[in-house]
C-alpha cells in the first residue's frame, strides 16, 4: 500500500499532497516538513530509500523518493510494495506529467495542482497502484479533458479567454523539471508496461 504521495520543492513548499490515510491538517503539514527535512539533507547520489519518519506509520514504512530539478517526489509505502517498482512508478508519473503539460515544470504543478491530482488518480487509487501503463493513463486523462471541454462549451469560452490573458505574464520563466537527463540511474525495467 502507498500511504502518502508528496511533492514539494527544494524549499519544502508543498506542491501536491495526497494522503491515503486520514491525518489532521496540522499533522499533514508536520509530515510534509519532516519528510522534507529527511529528504533534503541527502546527497544527490545516495540511495532513494529512507526509513520512514516518526509521524507516518511505523517501522514497516519506507520513503521512496526521486529528485527532479526543483522538485522532490516522495512516496511513502509499506513493505508490500516493491521498492524498485515504486521508483519506476515515480518515473512513469513524471513522464506522464511531462506529456500532459508538455515539458512539465514546477509552475505547472503550482498552478494546476487539480490537474496533477487527476492524473495521479488514474495511477494510484486509494493507496493501490491502479495503472502503470503511460499510454493508458494519458488516454483516460485526454478523454476526461475532452468531456470537460465539451461541457464548458460556449459558456466556458470567455473564462478561458480571460484565463489565457491572465496567464500571459507569469511571474517567472518556467523551470523545467527536466525529464530528459535524469541523473539518477533508472533501474532497467523494460517490460514495465
Amino acid at each position: 500500500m502507498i500511504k502518502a504521495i508528496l511533492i514539494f520543492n527544494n524549499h519544502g513548499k508543498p506542491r501536491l499532497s495526497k494522503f491515503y490515510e486520514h491525518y489532521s491538517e496540522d499533522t499533514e503539514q508536520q509530515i510534509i516538513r519532516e519528510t522534507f527535512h529527511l529528504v533534503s539533507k541527502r546527497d544527490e547520489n545516495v540511495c532513494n530509500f529512507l526509513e520512514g519518519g516518526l509521524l507516518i506509520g511505523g517501522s514497516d514504512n519506507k520513503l521512496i523518493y526521486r529528485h527532479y530539478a526543483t522538485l522532490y517526489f516522495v512516496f511513502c509505502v509499506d513493505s508490500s510494495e516493491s521498492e524498485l517498482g515504486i521508483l519506476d512508478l515515480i518515473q512513469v508519473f513524471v513522464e506522464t506529467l511531462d506529456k500532459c503539460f508538455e515539458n512539465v515544470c514546477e509552475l505547472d504543478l503550482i498552478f494546476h495542482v487539480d490537474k496533477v491530482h487527476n492524473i495521479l488518480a488514474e495511477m494510484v487509487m486509494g493507496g493501490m497502484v491502479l495503472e502503470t501503463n503511460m499510454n493508458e493513463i494519458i488516454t483516460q486523462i485526454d478523454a476526461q479533458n475532452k468531456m470537460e471541454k465539451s461541457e464548458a462549451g460556449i459558456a466556458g469560452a470567455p473564462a478561458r479567454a480571460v484565463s489565457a490573458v491572465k496567464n500571459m505574464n507569469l511571474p517567472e520563466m518556467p523551470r523545467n523539471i527536466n525529464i530528459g537527463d535524469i541523473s539518477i540511474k533508472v533501474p532497467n525495467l523494460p517490460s514495465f508496461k
Partner: protein
Amino acid sequence: MALKIVKGSIDRMFDKNLQDLVRGIRNHKEDEAKYISTCIDEIKQELKQDNIAVKANAVCKLTYLQMLGYDVSWAAFNIVEVMSSSKFTYKRIGYLAASQCFHEGTDVIMLTTNQIRKDLSSPNQYDTGVALTGLSCFVTPDLARDLANDIMTLMSHTKPYIRKKAVLIMYKVFLKYPESLRPAFPRLKEKLEDPDPGVQSAAVNVICELARRNPKNYLSLAPLFFKLMTSSTNNWVLIKIIKLFGALTPLEPRLGKKLIEPLTNLIHSTSAMSLLYECVNTVIAVLISLSSGMPNHSASIQLCVQKLRILIEDSDQNLKYLGLLAMSKILKTHPKSVQSHKDLILQCLDDKDESIRLRALDLLYGMVSKKNLMEIVKKLMLHVDKAEGTTYRDELLTKIIDICSQNNYQYITNFEWYISILVELTRLEGTRHGHLIASQMLDVAIRVKAIRGFAVAQMAMLLDNAHLLTGNTQRNGICEVLYAAAWICGEFSEHLEDPMHTLEAMLRPKVATLPGHIQAVYVQNAAKLFATVLRKQEGAPDSQAAQETSQLLIDRLPLFVQSANLEVQERASCILQLVKYIQKLQQKDVEVAEEVSALFAGELNPVAPKAQKKVPVPEGLDLDAWINDPPSESESEDEKPKAVFAKEEPKHTRPRHPEVDEKELARRREARKQEQANNPFYIKSSPSSQKVYQDAPGVEHIPVVQIDLSVPLKVPGMPMSDQYVKLEEERRQKERAEKKKKEKKKKREKRGRGKKGDSGPESEEDITPAHQVDIVTEEMPENALPSDDDDKDPNDPHKALDIDLDKPLMDSEKLPVRTHRPEVLKSPAEDGDGEPAQAEPKKRSSKEKKEKKKDKDKDRKKSKEEKKKKKHKRDAEPEEPVEEQMEEPVQSEASAEVAAPPTSTPTEASDLDFWLSNAPVLSANQEVEPTPPETTSTPETTSAAAPESEPEEPKDTEPEETKSSKHKKKKQKKEKEDKEKKKKKRHHHHHHHSDGAGDESVQNGTVEEEEPLPPMSNYCLLAENSYIKMVCDIQGNLQDGSQVVVSVIFENKSDCFLKSMEFNVLDSLNSKLQRPEGAGPHDGLTVPFQLPPGVSNEARFVFSVQSIVMPQKLKGTLTFIVKSEDSSTHEKLDFKLHFTCTSYLITTPCYSDAYAKLLESGDLKASSLKLEGVNMPFHHLLARICFHHHFSVVERIDSCASMYSRSIQGHHVCLLVKTSGETVSIDAKCDEPSLLGNVLEEIKQTFSRC
C-alpha cells in the same frame, strides 16, 4: 436561460480562480496568512451563491488551501453540493475536495450515500470512475455496507476502466466492512483471470494485500497464482505475486519446493532488476521456510548470495541498499553464507549514505563471532565518535549493545572489556538510550558474578565523576546510567576498594538535581554502603571513624528528606532515623555493623522478564471475585497507587535475554576446561539456591590501576576498551601457544600410537573466555507455563479480515441490498438489486470455467498423471462434510467435472495438496516400485491407511503419506498373493489394530522358528456386480459398548465413473445404522467419495447394537450413479451384512495370573468344541484364532495354549486350545453361554473352511 448562463460566466470571469489564488499568494509572500484569510472570506461568499460553477471554483480553491494546511472541513456541505452537480467538471472538483478532506468523522458523509450510488451507476464511465476514486479515499463503514453490493456489480462492468477501479476499491470496502469479504470473494477471484491486464493486476493487488495480513486463508489460491506467475508478462503483477508467495511459503513448505525452480529461472532470465530482486527475496523466504532444508538448496542460497553481492557492489546506491536489505534476511537462517561477505559489509559501513550504513549495521549483528566481536565493536566505536547526527549515533549505540548482548552474551569472551565499552558509551551526549546502557550494566553485574569486582570499581568511578555526566542539562538521557552505577555500588559494596569515598560521592548536594527515581536509588544504596563502611570501620581500632560516617549521613540526608519526590523523601527520612538511632548506639559503644548489614543481606536473583505472567492461575482462583463484600465507594479512594521500589525495579525492567544456549555454552566450556582442576559449577539457579558463590580466576588481575584518573574532563576508564583488545589478543595468542604445546604433546603421543593428528586453524570454539564467566539464568517460577503469549495488536484493522473463505456462503451473509429510499433510484441501479440472486449461478459457472481450464492444463500433462490427480481428488473428498454432499443437487450434466458443491473450496484445498505434493509423490512412486516388501499388499493395508480417509481426520497434515498409501492400495490387488511375509512387520506399526495384536502375542509365546503364515484377511465379500465390489470388515468399538464399526471397501470395477453412492441398511430392532442428526430412519448414508474407474476406497459406517449374544444379518442396498462418457444410469446393489458374534469381540491382552483368577471365580460357564482334521501348525492355528476371532494368547506351553478375549459389553471369553495330531480340542468358558456357543460355532466354521 442562455443569457443567464452567459451572464453567470461573465460574472465568473472576474472571480478569482485557482490560478489567481496561487498567484496572489505568491505575490503576498510577506503577509501570506492575511491574504489567505481574505481569500477564505471571498470563498465563503462564493459558496453562498446559487451558481454551481462559482461554488465549484470556490471548492477548487479550498482544496488548494487544504494542501497548505488550512482546515476546510467547514465547507464539507458545499463540497457535497459540488459533488452532486450533474456536470463532470464540477463533480470531479467536488470528489477531489472530498477525497482530500473527508474522513470517518465527517458527518455530512452520510448524505453522500445516494449521490455516490447514483454516480456509480451513471452511464458515463468517468462519473463512475471519479466516484470510485473519491470513495476509495473516504469510504466509511456505513458507506462500505451500503455500497458494497453496487461496487460488486461494477466488478463485472463491461468497461475494463470501471472494472479495475471497482476491483481495487473492494479492498477498502473489505477493510471497513469485513462481512463483505466472503460474498465478494468468488468474484474477486474470478477477476484474477480477467482478459484485461489492468483488471487482472488490480485483482492481484487486492488479493496480495489481503493475503499479506492473513496468508493462511489464501493458500488455496496458490495454484492459480502459480499459473499466473508462469504465464504473466506484466512485471507489476509478477512482483506482486512473487511477494505474495513470499508470504505464503512459511505456511506451506511444499509450496516453497515447488517455487524454487521457476523463481530460479526467473532470476536467471529477467533483465528487470526489480523483478530479480523480488525473486531473490522470495527464494530467501522459501529457503527460510525450508531451513531444515534439502542439500540441493545450498545452490539456491549461493545463487541468491551471489546475486545480492552483485547488487551490493553495484554503483547504484539503490541496488546496494536493497542488496543489504535482502542479505539481512538470509542472515537469519544461513549466517554462514553471509559471513563470507564480511569484507563487503564492513565496507558498506563506511558508505556516505546513512540508509546504507544502517542496513550494514543490521547485518553486522549476525556476523560477529567470538573472534571478531572486539574488532567489530572497536570499529563501531570509531563510527560513534565520527557520527554527526544523533539518530545515527543512537542507532550505533543500540546496535553495539544488541551485538554484544545477543544470545545471552554468547560472543563476549571478556566482560571487563564489555563493561569498559559500556562506560565509554556513557560519554555520548544527548543520547536517548541512557536507560539501555544502564540496564546492560545492571544485567552484566548481576548475572556475571566474576565481573562484579571490576564493575563496581568502574561504577564507583562513574559516581565520582557524575558531574561530567550531568553537568549539561541536555545530557539528561545519559544520567540514567547513574541509576545503575549507584545500585551496583550499593548492592555489591563488598567489592569496593574505598566505600567511604563512594559514599561521599553519592551524598553530594549535586545529586539533588538528578531525576527523582535516581535519587531514590542513591539514598537506598547510600544506606547499603553505610552498612559496608560500618563493618570495615568497626573492625578497625579507630572507632571514631564509624561515628564520623554516621554523622556524614546525618548531615547530608536532610537534603533528600526535603525532596519533592515522594519516593526519595520517604526513603531518606526512614534512613535518616535509622542512622540517628545507630549513632546513639555507637555512642554507647555498641557494635551495630552486623545488624545494619543484616538489613541488606541476601542475594537478589535475576528474574525472567515474563516470569510473573507465566505463573498459571491456580485452579479455582478467581482474581476478579470479591474476597469480602464490595466496600463502599469512599473506601476505594484509600487504595494507594502501586508503588514499586525503585531498588527492585531492575529485576523487572531488564531486557530479556533468550535463555537458550546456556547449557550448551557451559557444556563446551566445561569440556574445554576439563584439564583445569577446579571445574566451575554451572549454576542453574533455582529459586531455592540462593547464594552460590564461585571462585572466579582472573578477577585479581583486573587492571584497574591503568585508569588515568588525572585526565581532566574525561570520564575515567574511557580509553580502556582498546587496551582490552590488545590484552585479549595477547591472551589468546598465549593460549594458542599453550594449546599448540599440548597438541604437540598429543601429537607425539598420537604418533606413537600411529594416529594422525591435525591442527586446523583456530576455530570459534577454541577461544576461551578470559574469566570463567558464569551467567546466572533468569529465574522462572517453578510452574511457569512454557508458552509465550501472542501479543497481537487487537486494534489491527486487518484482524477483522481474518475470515475463512473456504466455508460455504450462508444466506445471511449476502451483501445487504438497499431496500429503502427507492425514489432516488433509476433503472440501472435496479440491476444491482437483482444481483445477489444472480450471483450464485454465476459463481458456479465461473467455477466450471475454471475447472475446464484446469482440465486443459491437465491434458498437457501425461495422462498417467491426470489419472492420479483425479484419483487423488476423489480420495480427498471424504473430507467434505457430509451435509455438503447431501446438499449437492443431483446434476445430470457436468457433474463429473464439477464434483464440488457450490462452495468448492474443500476440494480446492485438496487440489492444493495434490498440486503441492505432485513432485515429491512422483519420486515416492519410484521409490515404492523397486521395493515391493514395503508395499504390503493384504487388504489390511487399506484398513491401516483408513484413518487417513476418515472424515474427521485433518487431511492436509500428511498428504504425501496418504498418497503413498493410496499407491499401496492400488498395488495390493496385483501383488496380493506373494507378500504375506512382511505382514507382521507392518503389524508392528499398527498394533493398535486388533489383528496385529494377536500376532504379536503369538510371537511372545513361541520359541520355535516360525513358518510363514498364510495370508489372512478379515475382509469378506459383501456384494458384487459388474460395476462395483464391496468387501467389509466388522469391528466392535472399544469406546462404546453398543457400537460396531463396519469398514466397507468399495471398488469400482467398471470403466465408468461412480458417484452419488448411497449406503442404506434396513434396521432391525437390535441393530441400527447410525445416521446423522436430522436424517430419517430410512434414509441412506451418502458415501463420502466418488470412484473413478479402477479405484477403490473405504468408508466406515457405525451401527448401534443392543444385544450381542446372537449373530444377526441386516439387509442393505447401495445405490449409485454410473457416469460414462455420454450417459449416466442409476444402479443398485443389494447386500447382506452379517454381524457375527466374533465381531463383537475385541482383542484384549490378559496376564496369566488375572486369567487364572478369572477361571477360578466360577462365574463362567463352560463349553467345548472338538475340531478334526485340522492340518496346520499349531502356531498357525493360534494365529488364525487370534486374527479372525480377536483373541490374544495368554500363555502357550508346547501344544497347549490359553487365550482370552472380551466382548464390547465386557463379557470374558476364555479358551484353552489343545492339539494332538489333527485333532484340536477347545475348552471354553464365558459368562454368557449363548455368546460362547456362537463364537465356538464361528471358530468351527473358520477351520472347516480350510
